[in-house]
């Protein structure tokens, strides 16, 4: 296996990782501030992708499509926050799981009702398509490099937001002591809606960005949702930096495992058996990793100790 | 001097730069109530956690009936006869008073692994639980849910739960917290009688109760015991006056 291929696969792992981060950041923020498990986060991802496909189809502009994706997901997010989610903060995790599971059903069938059962078209804009040459003779799709860049920038912005701004201070205070900041005159209800909208917009952006290289279809959010949960659990729920590290770990494990495990098994199994055993193990790899990390550190890598 | 039932030798615990307890040695002898007092943040909660086993010590040793229990878990120490009450009531709110009391009896019997016979049908456990309830004066509300009890009754139930273990020593974490004069009086009488069952290490803010009940008092300040003695000795101690009143030494 050549060095070029390995580097390319690492880039692929990074790209998957930063996309997962966009999802995971919202999830972990919402959990950290409001203590809410939101299974419907994957639906916001789907809403973003569909909105992007619809707007791109109508206007032909990729940038407009991205804006529309974030706006649509944020609006959908605010809507469910105000109508449903708000009533769940005081309830236990069990009720949250059930209610947001119900939201998944409503969103999935609702989108199918509006857009039909067939996948939608959303493509990379011309100015971002095709591969570029990297040092060392690596041909790598420009769009994926852009995705890595966007993920990094969003990560940086989120870090600045939570560490350097007034809003960030309120958010962090909200994580620790919601009665106190309410007493200090911060409108906690508006703060929650805002945080939810930010998380939703990030999910919508991820859905739209990924939708351009994958298929925009009903149910596209659930596999990503599960991966994003794996990410935040590994990173420690509520921690943005944990989500970032966790996302990269999951992205790299999933990508590299899928490539190298079958080859590893080929050393001591016949090829067909090696391929299927290796692939089987590769698809379980991140869950095994997550189990192992939780057994080692029961609140994740950056989670607060109980 | 009688052999100590519970004793600690040189306990230390620090959190980062903060030394919560430093070289604390304390003992509880048969038949006595030994009170630990001290200002907020003096390390009383840490000391209790170290004695009960819910927090590991950095250094030092804990002995129960002469046996080293330093590395035993909370559960082991409880089985060996160390009973405690909590500052904030730790009771199963959805269950009845009797069911809560049964829990202690169950723990004392050490056998929760019976799946098919009703717990309340086990006469042995039940007698034990009801005896404890009677002792604290809750026998008339045994069928009530804990959630329906008054604060004072919950404090009494805390003590009853500790009693069901038939312990060798009690550790009581502010049993009077939040009680009014009447309730305080009731509990003071109860504790006073309890010392005949087993000695009590009493951490308490209510100084009336402490001075009424305690046979000995230790004063914990900044993680260190600055004085141990009888009520009179403590009242007269310059070190204590200094710590509390800031009078120059």
């Amino acid at each position, binding site marked *: 296996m050549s060095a070029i*291929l390995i580097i390319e696969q690492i880039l692929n792992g990074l*790209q998957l990782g930063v996309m997962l981060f966009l999802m995971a950041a919202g999830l972990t923020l919402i959990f950290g501030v409001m203590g809410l498990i939101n299974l419907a986060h994957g639906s916001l991802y789907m809403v973003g992708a569909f909105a992007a496909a619809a707007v791109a189809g109508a206007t032909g502009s990729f940038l407009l499509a991205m804006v529309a994706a974030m706006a649509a997901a944020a609006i959908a997010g605010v809507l469910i926050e105000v109508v449903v989610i708000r009533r769940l903060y005081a309830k236990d995790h069990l009720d949250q799981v059930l209610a947001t599971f119900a939201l998944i059903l409503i969103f999935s069938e609702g989108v199918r009702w509006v857009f039909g*059962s*067939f996948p939608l078209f959303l493509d990379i804009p011309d100015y971002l398509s095709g591969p570029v040459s990297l040092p060392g003779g690596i041909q790598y799709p420009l*769009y994926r490099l852009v995705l890595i860049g966007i993920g990094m920038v969003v990560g940086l912005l989120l870090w600045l937001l939570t560490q350097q701004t007034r809003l960030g201070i309120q958010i962090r205070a909200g994580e620790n002591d919601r009665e106190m900041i309410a007493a200090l005159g911060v409108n906690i209800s508006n703060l929650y809606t805002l945080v939810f909208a930010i998380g939703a917009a990030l999910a919508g952006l991820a859905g739209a960005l990924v939708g351009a*290289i*994958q298929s925009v*279809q009903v149910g596209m959010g659930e596999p990503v949702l599960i991966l994003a949960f794996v990410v935040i659990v590994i990173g420690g729920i509520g921690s943005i930096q944990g989500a970032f590290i966790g996302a990269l770990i999951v992205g790299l494990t999933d*990508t590299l495992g899928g490539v190298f495990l079958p080859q590893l098994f080929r050393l001591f199994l016949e090829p067909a058996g090696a391929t*299927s055993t290796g692939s089987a193990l590769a698809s379980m790899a991140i869950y095994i990793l997550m189990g192992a990390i939780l057994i080692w550190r029961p609140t994740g890598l950056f989670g607060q100790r109980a | 001097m009688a052999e100590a039932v519970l004793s600690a030798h040189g306990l230390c615990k620090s959190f980062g730069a903060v030394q919560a307890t430093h070289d604390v040695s304390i003992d509880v002898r048969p038949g006595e109530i030994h009170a630990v007092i001290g200002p907020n943040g003096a390390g009383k909660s840490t000391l209790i956690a170290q004695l009960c086993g819910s927090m590991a010590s950095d250094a030092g040793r804990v002995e129960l009936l002469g046996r080293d229990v330093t590395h035993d878990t909370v559960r082991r120490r409880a089985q060996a006869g160390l009973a405690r009450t909590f500052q904030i009531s730790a009771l199963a709110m959805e269950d009845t008073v009797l069911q809560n009391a049964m829990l202690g009896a169950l723990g004392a019997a050490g056998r929760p692994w019976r799946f098919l016979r009703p717990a309340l049908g086990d006469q042995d456990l039940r007698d034990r639980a009801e005896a404890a309830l009677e002792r604290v004066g809750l026998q008339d509300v045994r069928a009530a849910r804990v959630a329906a009890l008054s604060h004072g009754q919950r404090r009494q139930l805390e003590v009853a739960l500790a009693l069901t273990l038939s312990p060798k020593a009690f550790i009581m974490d502010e049993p009077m917290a939040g009680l009014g004069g009447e309730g305080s009086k009731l509990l003071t009488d109860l504790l006073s009688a309890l010392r005949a069952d087993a000695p009590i290490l009493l951490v308490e803010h209510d100084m009336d109760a402490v001075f009424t009940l305690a046979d000995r008092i230790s004063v914990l300040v900044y993680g260190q015991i600055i004085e141990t003695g009888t009520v009179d000795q403590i009242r007269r101690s310059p070190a204590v006056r200094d710590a509390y009143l800031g009078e120059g030494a």
Partner: protein
Amino acid sequence: MTKVTQTLLAAACAAMVATAGLAEVKVGMITTLSGGGAGLGIDVRDGFMLAVEQSGRDDIEVVIEDDQRKPDIAVQLADKMVQSEKVDVLTGIIFSNLAMAVIPSVTAQGKFYLSPNAGPSALAGKGCHPNYFNVAWQNDNLHEAAGAYANTAGYGNSFILAPNYPAGQDALTGYKRTYQGELAGEIYTQLGQTDYAAEIAQIRASGADSVFFFLPGGMGISFLKQYADSAVGLPVVGPAFSFDQGILQAVGDAALGVVNTSQWNKDIDNPTNAAFVEAFQAKYDRLPSLYASQGFDTARLLISAMEKADVADVDAFRAALKAAEFDSTRGDFAFGLNQHPIQTIYAREVVKEGDVFTNKIIGVALENHADAYAAECKM
């Protein structure tokens, strides 16, 4: 809008026949109408109902149920069809795993099953049954055709990939059965996988001269878009499933020029097909897909048997089905010994007609092809 009318029509059809009390053949259709994969089931249903409507017969009652692509629901619906609705014939299942769950049990209970899509190998070989007829293909067929096409196109070093599940494993086996060149690589991907960057990098590094893939549904869309963007540029061959009318629009330009194998295309030149394509477009306002043609043919087969025999006379009805004397959208149609089609499979290419992506036939991949399992069938 069209959806509503279809549903209404199906309901009206059923209601009308039921009230008339003339129902002689009751058909239970279990197919996927909700969730992912619903597009396939909807096409099969629409194709089937079109043929029923065109026949003008009022002695067919069709009960349609949604299996949600869940095997346990499909089994439950099959029980309902057999026990409660007391249907004579079952049909409609899209996915092989659902077919395996339903078909052996309903045929064992003496019902006929006409498969409009799935053709798992277990039911073509040792598990064949006199009451089971496959009107579409045995699962391996299109992959075998892809292998044959690769030979004629002169490919000698293929990179092949499919999801790691039985149909995926069958696909690669099928391709290798006819393909004569070398393999540059063989990969099993994860079922439901959406990112193929890692695989594409391996393809690029492998030195292959062609790529064969079987990635149904959304997986194929993702792969093709990413493959096109990577500019690897090797020719791609695949079975029709990733290039049917329903999903081509979502793939877009990325699919242009890709060769895929199919037993049907809208430009197969025979009057039945031309009429079918026109009628389907007129009624549903979209181009028919492979699946729609299969649904249509299934209904035509059923109607042809009804013309010759009474469904109550099981042996006669079976013989009438087996004779398969109907005008298929594929031209000639005949069953092999195991009651799977012997048919010609075409190579077709994705083209753009106006704004619409579709396929056109560029040649024959396999002529009068029978499946590899027929010999194992003892019937």
